């Protein structure tokens, strides 16, 4: 069995999760401080990919990144790289689709953060950066973690936009989800089943790990001293 789709899916999901982690947190942090109108507008724009069909996201990305489109043509002539139909094209799709999950959960966590804690840190002489990384992020850990998990899961399962922007080339752009579709389409039920089982196994392990992490956190809290 060729394990390339598994490797490719995991690497795409991992890279986009890292990207979405920082993008989502930065967006949540800065947008929380904006005036209400700007906040409302940006909120709608940034959450849109969550409710749009993935094919619409894929089409929009192709319009932007295709070889004859402005960004795609510019990348081609400047760096000599293609933005579509390569393995990493899928990262664009997964980042856009997973971003709202990270952004919304992080924003929810930041909004429930007690601003007095930040003010206390500042009156004690600590920089805003220190307060953010040493107090706000640890206090909002649960929400941030939940957002990261959701983003990773969404990125791993992405199909629609990925298939449009990266296509299906065995050994190059194939991911688990595009492989399952391809195998089903070519009547290879046994092959499809293998990959379905792989996918189910990954998801189950993933959820188990998350549950374990949560229980351990709860126990640490109950047990008191670390």
């Amino acid at each position, binding site marked *: 069995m060729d394990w390339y789709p598994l490797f490719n899916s995991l690497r795409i999901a991992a890279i986009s999760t890292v990207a979405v982690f920082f993008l989502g947190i930065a967006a949540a942090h800065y947008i929380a401080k904006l005036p209400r109108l700007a906040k409302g507008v940006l909120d709608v724009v940034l959450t849109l990919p969550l409710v749009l069909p993935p094919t619409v996201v894929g089409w929009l990305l192709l319009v932007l990144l295709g070889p004859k489109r402005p960004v795609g043509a510019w990348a081609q002539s400047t760096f000599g790289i293609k933005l579509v139909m390569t393995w990493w094209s899928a990262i664009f799709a997964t980042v856009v689709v997973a971003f709202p999950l990270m952004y919304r959960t992080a924003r929810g966590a930041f909004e429930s953060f*007690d601003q*007095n*804690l930040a*003010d*206390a*840190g*500042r*009156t*004690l*002489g*600590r*920089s805003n950066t220190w307060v953010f990384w*040493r*107090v706000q992020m*640890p*206090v909002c*850990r649960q929400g941030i973690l939940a957002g990261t998990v959701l983003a990773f899961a969404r990125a791993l399962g992405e199909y629609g936009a990925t298939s449009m922007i990266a296509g299906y080339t065995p050994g190059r752009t194939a991911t688990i989800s595009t492989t399952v579709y391809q195998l089903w389409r070519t009547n290879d039920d046994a092959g499809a089943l293998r990959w379905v089982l792989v996918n189910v196994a990954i998801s189950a392990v993933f959820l188990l790990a998350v549950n374990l992490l949560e229980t351990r956190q709860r126990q640490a809290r109950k047990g*008191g*001293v*670390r």
Partner: protein
Amino acid sequence: MALSVDIKKQLGDFCLETSFTVENTVLALLGASGCGKSVTLRCIAGILTPDEGKIVLDGTVLYDSAARIDLPPQKRQVGYLFQQYALFPNMTVRQNIAAAVRDRARRQTVTAEKLRQFQLEAVADQKPWQLSGGQQQRTALARILASKPKAILLDEPFSALDSYLKYQLEAELAETLEQFPGTVLWVSHDRGEVFRNCRQVCVMDQGRSQGLFTLRELFHEPVTEAAARLSGCKNYADAVPAGSAVSLPEWGLTLDCGKPIPPDIRRIGVRAHHVALSAPHAPGAFPCDVLRVVQDVFNTIVLLRPETAAPDAPPLRMELSREAWYAAADKRHVWIAIQPRDILLLK
């Protein structure tokens, strides 16, 4: 070593105008809820920015709208004790205190010293949620003092505690503050707390500071109705000066004050425990109908209406010991006297 504040800030419909100067003492900001006390503290700490004005601490300008100076909170050296203490929940007591020491070389020694000084060594490695209320307050104070502030701001330090715990913590806090050389601002709506712990009082009423008073001036000779109300005075009436007496049209009375009345007096106040039973027809006494009797924990509260009062006049409130009321012969109709020195003349 002094703190001088003169600021204005508009918050929606609410307008804050505070000005006072205080030197190396414990100053209370006393006022009802929502009168702008906390906003004032936040402006001093740099958490909120006033619209205009000036704040100077020990010769350092913290804020000056004219000179466009607005130091960030980090550079103001003002310690702020938040209502719920705002301890960092992700850190231990030791880490909370260490976070306030920016000098890496001295961090360990200062932290150890504060842990010892505030008797927190036994709980040094616990998280804030594991501490008792008193330990939380001591941690917050230790953390503030570790940051070496020039002034300390206390925002209703006991608002969330029940009264038994409160007295214990209040004593501990007072002891700590006595050793602090700089200025302390203590925000409170509780006149007892202020009387026990502060030297000077700045009364705030609807966003405006009413100037500084010593405890004696506030509790024995308040000059405005807002100050009198905060000092616990319950009875008020419109007054017209009449030589050395005041005439009170609402109650249809003229009361002797034993001294010439300044012409700008518009109101009088009488504390409920200065309203006393008297023998019938005694000089200066007046007859009243009893409207209602309320039994309080240790006292009896009697609401009275002078016989000469207008129908819509506010009742006169009398507070006396249960025994004294029990001894009164007629409980529906009484004679009342108010000593001239007990009439508060208000502008």
